[in-house]
Structures are given as C-alpha cells and as structure tokens.
C-alpha cells in the first residue's frame, strides 16, 4: 500500500484497465473480494511470524515494568525498524534483530537494572518485605522472580525457569552486593526472547489463543505495550477470550491515556501524517509554515481520530465533519476566528465552511503537496492508496513526463489543470489520471500547506470541480468526502489498515476476505470506526492462530 516513493512522480499512469486499482498482485477487486472468491478460499486465521517488540513497544514495556520516568532508552539506542508497506513499524515479517540491536539492548538493560534496583518503589513492588540482609539472597531473588518474571515474560513461569533465575542471582551475589546481582538477573530476564518476542505456538490446525497470548495481542494493538494487571488477571482466570470481556476491555483500554500509542502508531502512519516531519514547503512561498504550525497540524489529526473513536461517530465522519481541533496558530492558518491560545481544543466549524474531515486538515494537505505547489495528482493518488486501498500502478517509463511549467514558450499562461488535461490526451496516461486527477482537483482550494486560497499559482480562480469518466462529479472537499464515504472500498480500506496494524503483520490476499467479513459485521451494526475496530478484535483472526502450512503456501 505505501508507495511513498512513487507519489511524487505519478504523473503518467498506465495499466489502470477496467475500474481503477486492480494491480495484478492483489486479489480480484481490491478491498471488495467477491463472495465467491472468499467462499472458495475459506480463509484461515494464519499466524504472525515470531513478533519482536519494536523500540516503542520495548520502551513502553520498560515503563510498565520499571516506572513511567524510564524515558525512551530503546528508541534512542537501537537501530530503527523497517516499515511495512502500509507504513507501520510493527510488522513482524520485516522486524529484524541482529548484533547491533542486541548489544544496544544489553546496554540499555544494564542501565535499567542499575538505576531501578536501588529505588524504594521498585523494591516495594517486586521484593515486598523481603530483605536480603536478613531473609537471604535466595529468598529475595525468589520473591522477585515470582512477581517480576510473569510480567516481564507476559505468561506463567515454569518452576525450572524460576529456579534458573534464582540460581543466577545467587551465583552473581557471591562477592557482590545483592543489588548488583539482581540487576544482572534482570538483564538476563529481559535479554531472553520471552521478553523480546511474542511467541505464539502454532502447528497443524487452528488453535484459539490462550488468555496470556490474547492479553498481549490486545495490549500491543491498543497500547503498543505489555498487558496491565487487569488483563493478566483475566488471562489467569481464563475468562479473557469472550466477546463481552473483549468488548469491555477494549472500552477500558481506549479510555486509558496509553491509547495515545494507537493514535501515534496506527493513525498517523496510516494517514502518512508522520511523514510531515520530512515535508519541506518552500519558505519563500509559505513563510507562515513553521514547526509550531506543523506540530498543531499533527495534533489536529490525532485528536480528531481520538474523538471519532471515543464518541463512536460514523466512519463517514473521517471525511465529512462539522468539527475539528484547533489552537490559535492553526485557526489563524485556516482563517477561523475566535480561537485563542496554544491549547488544542474542539471547535465547531461555522456553517458554510469547506473545512471538516481529514481531507481538509493541514497535515494531510501538506504531506500530499510539492514544496512549491499543490499536486492534484499526488492528492488523488494518496486518496486512492490510503482511503480506497486502490493504488494506481507506477507510470510506465516510455511516456512523456508532465510539463508543469505555468507558462508556454510563447508566454501563454497555463494552469496546472490545463497541463494535466494535456497530459491525459495520451490514452496511456488517461486510464489512471482520469480517476486520480479529479479527486485532487476537488481539494485545489487548499494550497500546498493547507491554507484556503481563492486563486491558483497562475492567478486563475480556483476550480474545484472533479469529474470522473463515468460522469459522476463532485465539487470541493465536502462533496468529495461524501463521494468517498459512499464508496464501499472506503470502509474496507480502513478495515484493511486496522487489521494489518492490530495483527502486526503483512496481509495476504485471503486476509482481505477476512477484512470483508469484519466490515460486513461492523456495517450491520452502526458502521462506526470504533465498531470496526471492535469487530476486528472480536474476529477469529485476532483470537486464534492458524497452521503453518496454509499461510506459508499462501505467501
């Protein structure tokens, strides 16, 4: 899905035969696999390749194990993750680990142990009343193992494992202080794959996850962190894998501040807003764009998504809304009055404004622009890719590139719309651009940093009418939003991103059939984003693992 590289050069597309977005490496009718196709396939849940915690998940787990003041040691010390095609960094298939990461992690762990073992709150939590001076090293190492290891490893700990830990600490304490010895024990426990990976045994046949495995899936999906005590208690009681319990846990977890991780890791990556950090609007043209504005733009998108989930608003709210989140800086940028101060807050948008919904947010409008101008092509491609999961293929090599000069050699002024019309005269280009360009045209009233404008780069009045080859048309962002919301591929595409992220793996063709059934169930209820997330977590694919073979063959 993430075709980041090509977005700036998709100026000449071909190969868009039939309806848009059917690259040959996808199953028929992307996002809407036919019922027949899915019935024949009878998709199995598959499994997740041994999942390494990414840096954020490590740091959040450290915070849970040691204390909230732990900072971001893993993020700072370990090499960065490879991105998945959708832009996520929790894809088990491309999360690697090697000597550099292991050594860096070892250094982080050594420091964590040294720092926290002497602290009273840490000792009280894991050692209780045990005092090595009076109770002995072995007793206290045992007490620590009983409270710390099951959390760190997110599962019950075997007696042999506990004994090995105690033996390590006892041996290390020979000639050293208990604190030093315990720190070494912690280092060993967290270097173990039981911490660093999320192992899910799979063999032949479909197996329902045990409570601990499911607790981890839920917590890493919604919090990018390890389970908390409540999830562990439900796992231990054997009551977690139940529809109502999963629902109530999801509600609890969404209300928790840790849910911010979902917005950071899912929402901003799905929407490519995370790429705003690399956007470079030309300062000579957009002098108002600075880091404060950029940061407000990202916050707007995060808070907006959080609100849509918290309030259980319809999925269509994502593309058509009458509210947003602003501070004074961003409100001024948008030309909206009456918002003062730095704090982001919910703002009802005045009647008649074009703003409202993701398509009109500065973050997305900037990420989909060139440094010096808007790009209807880039915006159109973004919408196809991120909202409809129907990315156009890359342009063929042998066609004339788009000429985006605003003036012909004879001095005639030519608008971008006219240039693109010239470009579409080539039938090879037209098959894709006929669909891509109109989507982008509808957003032309927003400049390359998302500010409202009445005229384009050439001084011509904005024309935000988009007309598709089949005669359908829309004018401006509201009509475009409504158009997207009605397209069944929209909900399927959101579902596809949700499933890939919450599972933490790449999706195969048969997985799209699973997305389809999840979306159908969500739509049979209220069809909200929250319901879609809930149905994802309730589906068999999230609660079970499949056989080795079916998925291995499928890929």
């Amino acid at each position: 899905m993430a075709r980041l590289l090509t977005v700036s050069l998709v100026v000449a597309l071909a190969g868009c035969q039939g309806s848009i977005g059917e690259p040959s490496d996808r199953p028929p009718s992307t996002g809407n696999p036919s019922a027949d196709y899915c019935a024949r396939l009878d998709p199995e849940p598959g499994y997740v390749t041994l999942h390494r915690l990414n840096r954020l998940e490590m740091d959040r787990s450290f915070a849970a194990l040691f204390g909230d003041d732990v900072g971001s040691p893993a993020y700072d010390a370990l090499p960065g993750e490879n991105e998945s095609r959708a832009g996520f960094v929790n894809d088990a298939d491309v999360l690697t680990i090697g000597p550099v990461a292991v050594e860096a992690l070892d250094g982080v762990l050594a420091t964590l142990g040294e720092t926290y073992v002497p602290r009273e709150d840490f000792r009280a939590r894991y050692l209780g009343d045990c005092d090595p001076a009076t109770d002995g090293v072995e007793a206290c190492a045992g007490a620590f193992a009983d409270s710390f290891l099951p959390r760190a490893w997110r599962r019950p700990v075997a007696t042999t494992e506990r004994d090995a830990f105690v033996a390590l600490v006892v041996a290390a304490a020979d000639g050293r202080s208990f604190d030093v010895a315990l720190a070494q024990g912690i280092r060993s426990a967290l270097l173990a794959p039981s911490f660093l990976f999320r192992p899910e045994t799979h063999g032949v046949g479909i197996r329902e996850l045990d409570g601990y495995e499911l607790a981890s899936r839920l917590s890493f999906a919604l919090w990018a962190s390890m389970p908390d005590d409540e999830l562990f208690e439900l796992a231990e009681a054997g009551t977690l894998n139940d529809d109502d319990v999963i629902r109530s846990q999801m509600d609890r977890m969404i209300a928790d501040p840790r849910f911010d991780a979902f917005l950071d890791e899912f929402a901003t990556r799905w929407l490519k807003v995370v790429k705003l950090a690399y956007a470079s609007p030309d300062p000579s043209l957009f002098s108002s764009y600075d880091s404060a504005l950029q940061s407000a733009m990202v916050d707007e998108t995060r808070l907006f998504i959080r609100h849509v989930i918290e309030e259980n608003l319809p999925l269509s709210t994502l593309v058509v809304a009458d509210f947003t989140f602003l501070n004074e800086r961003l409100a001024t940028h948008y030309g909206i009055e009456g918002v003062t101060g730095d704090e982001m807050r919910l703002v009802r948008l005045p009647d008649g404004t074009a703003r409202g919904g993701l398509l009109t947010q500065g973050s997305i409008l900037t990420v989909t622009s060139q440094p010096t101008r808007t790009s209807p092509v880039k915006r159109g491609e973004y919408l196809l890719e991120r909202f409809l999961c129907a990315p156009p293929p890359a342009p063929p090599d042998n066609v004339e590139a788009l000429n985006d000069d605003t003036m012909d050699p004879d001095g005639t002024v030519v608008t971008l719309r006219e240039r693109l019309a010239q470009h579409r005269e080539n039938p090879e280009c037209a098959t894709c651009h006929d669909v891509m360009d109109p989507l982008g045209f509808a957003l032309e009233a927003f400049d390359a940093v998302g500010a409202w404008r009445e005229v384009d780069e050439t001084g011509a009045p904005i024309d935000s009418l988009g007309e598709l080859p089949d005669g359908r048309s829309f004018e401006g962002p509201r009509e475009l939003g409504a158009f997207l919301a009605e397209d069944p591929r929209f909900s399927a595409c959101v579902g596809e991103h949700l499933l890939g992220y919450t599972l933490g793996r790449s999706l195969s063709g048969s997985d799209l059939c699973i997305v389809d059934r999840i979306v159908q169930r969500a739509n049979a209820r209220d069809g909200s984003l929250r319901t879609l997330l809930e149905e994802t977590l309730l589906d068999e694919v999230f609660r079970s693992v499949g056989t080795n073979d079916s998925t291995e063959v499928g890929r």
Partner: protein
Amino acid sequence: MSFRLSRRAFLGGAGAAIALPYLEAMAPRTMRERARAAEDRGVRLVWMWVPHGIIRRHFTPSTEGTGYALPSMLQPLEDVRDHFDVISGLHNRPGQGRYTYPDGTVSDDGPGDHARDTGTFLTCARLRKTDGADIRNGQSIDQLAAQHLREFTPQIPNLSLSTFGGYGGDSGYAPIYQANISWVNATTPAERERSPRAVFDRLFAGFDPGESALERERRLALERSVLDGALDDISRLRGRLGTRDNQKLDEYLEGIRALEVRLETSEGRAACEPGTPPPDSGYDFPTHVQLFFDVMALAFQCDRTRVVTLMLQKQGSVHDHLSVDGSTITANHHGMSHLENGDSDIRRIEAINHWQVRQFGNLLRRLQASEEGDGSTLLDNTLVCFGGGLDGTGHSSGRATGDLTPQRSGPVHRHTNLPILLGGHGRGAVRGGRHLVVDAPLGDLYTSMAHAAGVTEVARFGLDGTGPLSGLG
C-alpha cells in the same frame, strides 16, 4: 603504552597524519596469530552508495587510460587522482525490470527501479516483488566478505552505516528493499547504524585497562551466566515454533553469540586508544558524513573491523545544505531524479552529485592521513567502491533529457553503465589514476575487491557474475 588522538585530529583529519603503531608492534596475542596467517592481507573494504546514480555528462572522462582530463565533476579529486580509477561500463542487470536469467528464463517485474537500485547494488541478485511477508534478495558482497574476514575482527566483522532512518516502498516492492544495501542473507538486511557516536562507542567502549586478570575472569563468568539465561530461553522456545519463527530466533541467536564473542575477545581492545568520541548530536548533515569517515578510519586504524558500507542518503532525501544559483535545494532528490523540470532539475541533481563526489574525495583524504606502522597509509591498504545502481539519468523520452549526451546518459532509469569510482589501492591490487572502460557485471568488480582482501573463496559474485574483473592491477 597507548596513543590518544586529539579531538582536532579526530574531527579534522585533513593533513594530520596520525601514526598509530601497525598491527605487529602493538598487537595482542590474537593479532600476532593472525599476522602469521599468510592469507591475511590486511585489506579493508568500503562501499559507499548514492541513490539515483550520477548524471554523466560532467562525470565520465572523455578518454581512456591514464592522464585523462578530469571532467568538472571530478575536479575536486585532483589531489587524489592517482588514488582512484573511474570505471565505466559496469552493469547490474539483475536490477532491471525485465531480466533474463543465465538459464534463459525471463522475469519481468515492471516498475520499481528505485527499490532495485538500492536493493541489488551490493547483492547483484533479483528482488522478489512482494509486500513484505516473503522478502527475498541475496547476500550482499560486504556481508560475504565479512563472513570470511570475521576471524580477524570477530567482535565487529563489519559496519553498515547510513545517514537516514526508515523509508517507504516503491511500486510493489516492500520498503525494506529500498532502505538497505547490506543483506546478511537473502531475507534479512543488516542493521543500519545512523549515529557516529553510537558506532564509536560500540567500537571502543567497555575496555578497562586497569582490570586485573582475576577481575576480568570474574566479570566474564557473570556475563556468561547472563547470556546463558537468554540462550536457555531460546532453546526452550525453539521446538515450539514454525520455520519462519525459527529464522527470527536464529537472527537473535546470532546477536547473542556476537555479544559472547565480544566478551571472550575483549582483550583485543587494548591495542588502540581512539581518543575523544564524536559528539552525539548537534551537527549538520555534512558533518554527520565527515564523522562517519572519521569513525571508519579509526575502526580501520585500530583494526576493529575490516568491512564498511555507507548509504549516503536515500532516494527521497532533501539536500537543503546545497544551493543552486543562490537558492536552496528544497525539492527531494527523487522528485528531481526524473528530470521532469528539465534543466532546473538537471542542475540541481548535478549539484548533489558534485557534493557526493567531494565526499568520496574526503574519505580518500581521511584514509590517506592515517599512517599504518609499516609506513603505508590506510588508503594504500583499503578499497573504496563509490557509486550507485542506476546510470544516473531521468525518466521517459521527455524533453528534460534532451540536452544530455545520449551515449552517456540513458533516457530511463537504467541499470547499465553505472557510475563507479574505485578508490585506494588494496595493498597493490589496484593501481589508480585511470579511466577504465569495461563491459562487465558489477559483481565482477566485487569479486576482485574480495580477492584483494584475501577472500579468494568467492569465485564469482551475483546472478550474472563471471569472475574477477581484469585490468585493475
């Protein structure tokens, strides 16, 4: 006895010839052992990759052999011109969209030249076009060489450096291909290290000259027990997991074993004191690159590693440290690489290429400034392959490419006639000072480089490799 480099020497490098004792004199036991081994040629290998290739009209010399007139883009290399060869005519056909395997099978993967530029540059293999679940490339030459040379620098067989973080995909290729040139094996890229400071620390930290033998033994026993705990857990898990899971576990096991090796061989660090570490932040991008060169030179000088790769930016980097006609380059490199804006793109890309070539010069000078104990310089004993996996020019038959000399710059992203400079002498393996025109697979150059380092086990490299490239000596 130890040698401390001044901060100035570390950061500047230019002109400061730093005499560190050569291997033999200061060498600890293991080093003496390996010096006895006839096959150790003490040659270091560097690969330095740039995205999108290089526009050729001011890069390729107009005559062959020695004494060629330096084209304008190579003029910054005047002072080191005797220490590198320009090699024209190398190709990396496995990187093409359409490829005919040696057995005649044809594979057509369509678009994705940027993913293939990066992914195949050091593997000369075919990339499997996939979203991510079944990545397949080949082992890269640096990893293969490091595998054979690791006995000499067991703690750090190689470094994979890059100046950027994550990156997106291209036309159906998973992002992993275009973020990595160095591949441990067909499915796993090497970990890229971004921070010169972190690399420095990994190379040199942890050595305590005051530690007694007894103290060391006690410390090692403890460290071993820590690692044993992790190893036990790995064995317990192994039986319960599937094939792909176990591959991940193997990657991890390699990491733990590397830690073990570091422990057991930590004595070796006594040979060389590197001096002041680089700053860990607060520098600009050009300084970042220079710091990498410094770290590289120190690693070689102290014989901490033999093989280094450096990705000098990524396809979509913004080179806003450069300007053309007084305006800063704000467009991203990839956006311009198709030359859609004609001359304006060409000139901005050439400014980037010019800068990249200067970095090659800076590295050669940095290596030249470091003397080894036998009176030679690091440059004498290193081979630096600089270049990229595309021929350097543009997109389509569009107007933009019209003013580029056709025989030197193709109309599309091609994987033939690659821009390659080979710096250093590899202890006499490469003469330098010439413009060599060949017609050979890129893998043949790599085979020659491996042979120069004593890795003669590599008979040929890459899908279409034929053997060593002739004419380098």
